[in-house]
């Protein structure tokens, strides 16, 4: 797989003596959908901005498709689509928005855009974006972003404001727009809606990457199952009481494959980081 983003020993801070990212390193490849998770204020949105060249690092290096993002080279920008959490306000109709911005993206596919809008149940392209609800506007922007066919798609909380059916549509559309050349980074808190979509989970904790593994590897090394309160099995890493019972994250000693519960994994990592990291580094070695 082609490496699209290489971040090495990155340092970034908004205010003096308050480092947000320190000695931060991360490699991201084409052909993957990365779920970027972390608590509030960990620097997830800032990381997306650093990759896009919207803020500049104070130390270290970032390479995005062979470009330094802070130079905002147009050839790099035409291969990145960044959808921020809060949307750009415009009174343009969808049709005029497409007329104004699609020409900047050489791989923009108008048919794909129309199909995606239909799938999102946006009936008329004559509708003014300022008159659409936040959710509908977000759908238009997601559809536009997918139709740009940029190599890098950065989505910050894309499912915020979407209703339940739209979240399922979003998953379908993103999956259908993926290919081996493309890399998607989805930063979100709504992890349940990423189930079955992302193939790599990247978790930020204390302003560093504390976990970055493929879903395939996670399945090989961990199981996510319901158990009992009285279970004392040493392979249990984390237990959480839910309405269904006691959800457990366990070391996968049997080779059995279970569905990855991202929320459970996140909570497990927050409470038992050392053990999980050790488990993955042991197996890596």
């Amino acid at each position, binding site marked *: 797989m082609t490496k699209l983003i290489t971040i090495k020993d990155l340092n970034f801070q908004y205010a003096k003596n308050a480092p947000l990212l320190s000695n931060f390193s991360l490699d991201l490849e084409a052909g993957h959908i990365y779920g970027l998770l972390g608590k509030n204020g960990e620097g997830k949105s800032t990381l997306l901005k650093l990759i896009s060249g919207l803020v500049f690092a104070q130390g270290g290096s970032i390479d995005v498709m062979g470009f330094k993002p802070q*130079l905002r080279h*147009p050839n790099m920008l035409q291969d*990145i689509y960044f959808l921020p959490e809060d949307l750009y*306000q415009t009174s343009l109709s969808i049709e005029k928005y497409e007329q104004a*911005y699609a020409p900047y*993206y050489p791989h923009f596919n108008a048919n794909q855009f129309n199909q995606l809008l239909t799938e999102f149940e946006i009936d008329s392209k004559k509708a003014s974006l300022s008159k659409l609800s936040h959710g509908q506007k977000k759908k238009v922007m997601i559809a536009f972003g997918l139709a740009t066919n940029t190599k890098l798609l950065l989505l910050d909380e894309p499912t915020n404001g979407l209703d339940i059916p739209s979240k399922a549509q979003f998953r379908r559309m993103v999956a259908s727009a993926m290919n081996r050349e493309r890399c998607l980074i989805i930063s979100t808190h709504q992890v349940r809606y990423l189930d079955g979509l992302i193939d790599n989970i990247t978790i930020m904790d204390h302003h560093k990457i504390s976990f970055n593994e493929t879903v395939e590897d996670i399945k090989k090394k961990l199981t996510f199952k319901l158990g009992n309160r009285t279970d004392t099995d040493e392979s249990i890493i984390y237990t959480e009481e839910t309405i269904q019972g006691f959800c457990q994250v366990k070391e996968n000693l049997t080779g059995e494959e279970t569905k990855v519960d991202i929320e459970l994994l996140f909570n497990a990592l927050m409470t038992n980081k050392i053990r999980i990291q050790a488990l993955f580094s042991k197996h890596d070695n």
Partner: protein
Amino acid sequence: MNQSINPNKILLQLKQYFLENQEKEIMYWSIMTLIFTLMHQDGTFLFILSISGLIFAARQFKAFGHTPSGIHYLMIPATQTEKIITAVLLNTVYYFTMSVVAYGIGNLLGSTLFNNMMSSQSEIYWSLFTGERHQIWSVLISFVSTQAIYMLGSLIFTKHPVRKTILTIIAVTVSLYIIEYFVFQLVFGNETKLTNLLPFFSEKFADADDSFFKVLTPIMESVLAVVLWIVSYFRLAEKEV
């Protein structure tokens, strides 16, 4: 760093501006024409041009006052140079041309209406194109340099750029005035009159040959505009949102 100039990218940005502001522009220039119709023959063109132009230029980069809009603007795949050229074309060439057109139509309409209503045969007075003080060329050069100041202001001040740019200009002017006063006090002693001192236009300079200033002023203004455009370019390049 690729800072090439692709005319297509400039055209795309202009198209994008007019698509986004089509209705506002029609409304705005209709109002401007109406103002010139009502104020024809008053020679108020310069005043209206300066005030409206400064507001237009100082709001050029208003996108930076709202983070999502700032992100949207910076993510447009065009070079910094192409973005600055587009901004300059809009706030100088486009704005000045439209102002002259609005002035022309307004002046013509106003004078015709006035003559019809008063049954008079007054000549249409084209103050912009005639008279020594209102030469269109010198007006344009002054306008371009002023717009360059306000455009830079809109890049520096993300919130309330109009107000802050005007206050900065006042502060810089007063500072120059004070510095000049003390320099003249040191050089010429107590005979320096405070009231006679204005930055760069003191009585000592006023004594100089008038034609010298007539040549120097447009050159200085042109140089100032170019310098400010370059500064704006670097300011845009280092802009973060």
